[in-house]
């Protein structure tokens, strides 16, 4: 599949922006990559924003990794890999949710041991499926580090439907989820069904992780799940604004990564993570500067 870039590389980067963009969209697979990337970036930024807020990065990472045995297993038994991508993380979400999370202390470390075990076992199963399937080594690299070449129209449709569904459900539970995240005790006292909300959110997060892993590969999901949200939360404390900022950053990182990945010989996953990380570092640096001039900045925020 990687060979597909070669004809385009032959013409290469011209540094003429119009020509480059035309060249970028000349191939159908590239158009599909941008469509899929856009859908995934939005879903990942929104769900990742809550993930960073809820400090469930580890769970999100596990869902992404679980997508690997899902896809490998589905391929092994002859089902569509897309189905495996979604089924396995959702199953993992159910397992993780079954262990109660009591907040701090033993409860939290208990959860992390479960999450770690689920993850290691899932990956081991994936490796077993791959070795049973045999002769699949190019495929395994694509599963782990992503491929944006050869995304079919059907896949784009599936990704879009799942993303829209997940975001719709999230819109319904967003307010109680936010409440339960910021202050679980008060939320519970006010009658918010915190456990149900947390469970539904885990399912949504699993869907988002499954989506991202189809673009960036299971090992690099954090590029779209954590980095934009973390950067946005560094830059502003207001929920609405930082959510919008996370979406914008996610889209920027994805588009830039795909574009640069197309013109360079290096994998797109590398570029997406690098741009995401750069954004995060800039955000952290910017915030450090801002806190130094804290008073003035706070004044500005109130005016704006």
């Amino acid at each position, binding site marked *: 599949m990687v060979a597909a870039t070669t004809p385009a590389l032959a013409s290469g980067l011209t540094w003429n922006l119009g020509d480059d963009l035309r060249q970028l969209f000349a191939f159908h697979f590239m158009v599909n990559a941008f469509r899929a990337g856009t859908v995934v970036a939005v879903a990942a930024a929104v769900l990742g924003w809550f993930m960073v807020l809820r400090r469930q990065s580890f769970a999100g990472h596990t869902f992404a990794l679980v997508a690997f045995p899902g896809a490998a297993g589905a391929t092994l038994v002859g089902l569509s890999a897309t189905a495996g991508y979604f089924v396995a993380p959702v199953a993992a979400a159910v397992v993780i949710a079954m262990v109660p999370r009591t907040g701090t202390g033993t409860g939290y*470390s208990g959860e992390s041991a479960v999450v770690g075990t689920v993850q290691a076992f899932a990956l*081991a199963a994936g*490796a077993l499926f791959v070795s049973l399937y045999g002769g699949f080594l190019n495929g395994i690299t694509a599963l782990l580090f992503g491929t944006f070449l050869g995304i079919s129209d059907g896949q784009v449709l599936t990704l879009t439907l799942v993303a829209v569904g997940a975001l719709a459900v999230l819109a319904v539970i967003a307010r109680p989820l936010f409440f339960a995240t910021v202050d679980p005790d008060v939320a519970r006292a006010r009658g918010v*069904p915190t456990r149900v909300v947390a469970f539904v959110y885990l399912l949504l997060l699993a869907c988002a992780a499954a989506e991202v892993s189809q673009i960036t590969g299971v090992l690099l999901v*954090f590029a779209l799940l954590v980095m934009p949200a973390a950067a946005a939360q560094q830059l502003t404390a207001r929920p609405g604004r930082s959510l919008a900022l996370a979406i914008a950053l996610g889209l920027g990182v994805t588009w830039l990564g795909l574009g640069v990945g197309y013109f360079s010989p290096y994998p797109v996953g590398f570029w997406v993570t690098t741009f995401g990380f750069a954004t995060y570092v800039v955000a952290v640096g910017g915030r450090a500067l801002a806190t130094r001039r804290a008073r003035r900045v706070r004044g500005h925020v109130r005016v704006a």
Partner: protein
Amino acid sequence: MILVVNPVAGLEHIFEHPFLRNAYLAGTAIALAAGLVGYFVVLRAQVFTGDALSHVAFTGAVAALARGVSVLLGLYVSCVVIALAMALLGRRGRADDTVIGSIFAWIVGLGALFLAIYSSSARGSNGTTGVTVLFGTIFGLSGTQAITDALVSLGVTVVLLAIARPLLFVSVDEAVASARRVPVRALGLVFLALVGLTSASATQAVGALLLLGLLAAPAGAARRITARPYVGMWISALIAVGSVWAGLTISYAAPRVTPSFSIVAVATGVYLMCFVVTSLRRARAGARREVAPA
């Protein structure tokens, strides 16, 4: 009569193969260290850090391959350096979830880059190296590698046992420990360095991606069984070593099952069993605090 193949019959000859001797030697030492270190990793809720280090190990190994340096060197250097960096970035020797996530995602991205460089070079044209690093090849360890790993793991074990008491204090009650002048930060640093070393050596046994199977599962099981830390520590080590032995034996008897998978599968099975048994016992003992006010 093809089914006559009796796995047990082969077991008498198991130590006649040098590759199996190496695997058992390195595997035992690595599991001992991973079980003990893992107990503290779970106790301190730093499993995510271990997870991150296992990915760092991948990048370190592939970077070493791409540059033509020894893989062992790449593994140890990258794991220890990143472990110390994460300890320094976090408050009191613990890094924040988001910081860990962002850093290690980028490091894995770098790993993808090195893998691309390496597999397009003449040396790595067969394309299996990345997979080998990710999923481990304990049966492929050479005698020197096995001895190096065993020595490093034993060193980790000795250092960990030496700092076990203050480390336990710090892990359980950081505030009181620092009030009692226990060097919280230094202990956090030393501990993460130990986790780094364990990750590097365990990467060769079960692979970068399956490391958590040895780090989290035995410790999680031990914590389900007993709340007493010293007993739990050794139970965790015992489960880890047992998983490695059982896993290696299963893979020897059934060659299609890769050793990494069988080791992790045994460890997961033990954890699952402990989980179910203790849950049943707790349910029978009556609703204590398990029934959370919903």
